[in-house]
């Protein structure tokens, strides 16, 4: 029994440190985004024409930024909750409620996002689909769709970690 708990702790720790590390790394994308914005503004004034890569690079960086940050945000409980009711519950019923909520409000969403996201990304890779927005540069769109799936997957894993924690707390009355 004890060994299972040890393994579980190890598993949770791995997920948490992954969320932490990916999020912290992704958080610097905001500086890249800033650089792209500043550079393309300067170039626009210097050459009287916005650089062709400005548009696509901007949304792709912003997209990678928040998609890869999702798990970090969940890890640090950053996703806003309206918890003035649930915070009055004692710890154990609260964990039970949380377990139920993960089953109803979390897993269906991320199952669909990951499952269909994979098809969606594979399609773009196979057909060599390119960005539909710009007219000249048009980068391939497969990579960012892959990032989308990875982001959702990491967030789902972080959700699994919390689910297991609360399940443990709900059944044993304390956090692992």
């Amino acid at each position: 029994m004890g060994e299972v708990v040890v393994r579980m702790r190890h598993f949770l720790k791995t997920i948490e440190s992954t969320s932490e590390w990916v999020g912290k790394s992704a958080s610097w994308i905001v500086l890249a985004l800033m650089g792209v914005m500043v550079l393309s503004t300067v170039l626009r004034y210097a050459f009287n024409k916005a650089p062709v890569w400005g548009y696509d690079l901007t949304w792709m960086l912003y997209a990678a930024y928040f998609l890869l940050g999702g798990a970090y945000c969940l890890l640090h409980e950053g996703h806003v909750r309206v918890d003035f009711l649930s915070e009055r519950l004692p710890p154990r019923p609260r964990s039970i409620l949380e377990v139920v909520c993960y089953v109803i409000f979390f897993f269906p969403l991320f199952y669909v996002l990951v499952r269909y996201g994979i098809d969606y990304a594979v399609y773009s890779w196979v057909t060599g689909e390119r960005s539909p927005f710009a007219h000249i540069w048009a980068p391939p769109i497969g990579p960012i769709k892959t990032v989308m799936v990875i982001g959702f997957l990491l967030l789902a894993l972080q959700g699994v970690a919390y689910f297991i924690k609360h399940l443990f707390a709900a059944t044993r009355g304390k956090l692992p």
Partner: protein
Amino acid sequence: MSPELVTILMFVGIFIGVATGFPLAFVIGSLGVIFAFVADISLSIISIRAFGVVTTYIFACIPLFVFMGCMMERSGCAELAYGTLHRWMGGLKGGLASTTVLICTLFAATTGIIGASVTTMGLVALPAMLKRGYDKPLASGCVCAGGTLGILIPPSIMLVLYAPQAGVSVARMFMGAFLPGLLLAVLFIAYISVRCYINPSLGPSLPPEERPKIPRRQNLIMGAKSLFPPLFLILAVLGSIFFGVAAPTEAAGVGALGAIILAAIYGKLNLGNLKAASYTCLRISTMIMFIALGANLFTGTFLRVGCGKVVSNFVLGLGLGPWGIFALLLFFIFLLGMFIDWVGILLVMVPIFCPILHGLGFDPLWLGLVICISLQMSFLTPPFAYSIFYLKGLKIEGLTLTDLYKGVVPFLGLQALGTALCIIFPQIVTFIPSLMYAPR
């Protein structure tokens, strides 16, 4: 399943989901997925919708403005500016409370981040006011209310989120929010001053011996040093949008760089601050974007099943007339504001209700701003009042929860008054956008 039934179930789902205290983003997103499944809509559309949020170019503003705010907060410029205005206005009755509102208005750029100004002012201004014997509800109320101004006064995340939903340009919404934001600030300050002049014990002026004795010249120079750089940054960002020199995303990028430079000027640029700003920015931007994603999945399914038509038939069938429906919407938003935070209200309500009002001939720009102005009340309406939560979280000695609740009541009234003024005199909203450089 009939559209009517789905409409009811989806709304009930939101209320149950929100009441459980589970993250709002996942609750609404899941409801979108579950009801798509129930209504037999192809689930591959969910990915397409998610990708639609991912590719919304204008949303790139959000992390940049949030970063600008986080960095400005780290630069400590609000504290410095508070010190200056404290010296300049401390002699007035209620001067410290008015100063608080002024600082919140000036630094609205930093406060596009939810709660940042309530926290900053709660730590800097509130203790100063309490020490001088200010009335507790008045002191805490002006911090809470002042803090909410930031969410409206541009650059404002709320307006960036609203604009693409209603098909209005972000730049025009920014400019439209300018006067209403100032109007609210003026109302707050006027209220504080009038009350303190009638009853000086509420907000006594600093006794002359406590006013710092600095030569006037030095006082002015020190003040300029603390006020000019952040003011310049904020005005440069807004000005470039107003004159069409830069698109909002470009202005956001340059503003973020400006905030880093600002931190450097005040000697606060180091790896620690950069890291802290960066991580906070990630958490806030991600939180907002995931609600946007969830809301998009929710409203996508909702409208696809035909629930939009159900709601519109129901609302139009009430026989209230355009203004009656408008009033109903505002009341509904106010009611929701007690329980849900503004991001959720904005992103779920706007795509469902605004087409009805646009169809009745309301100007989308004006309507959007009236909604955003009234949404400010959601920060102050209990039981779920953000501003009060943040202030409560600071655990300031001698301040009870009752003081906090009592404090926000008059300011809620002023917000309602401000909203009413913008409805009666739509020019308050539309005047500046009408002067703007036409969008390309």
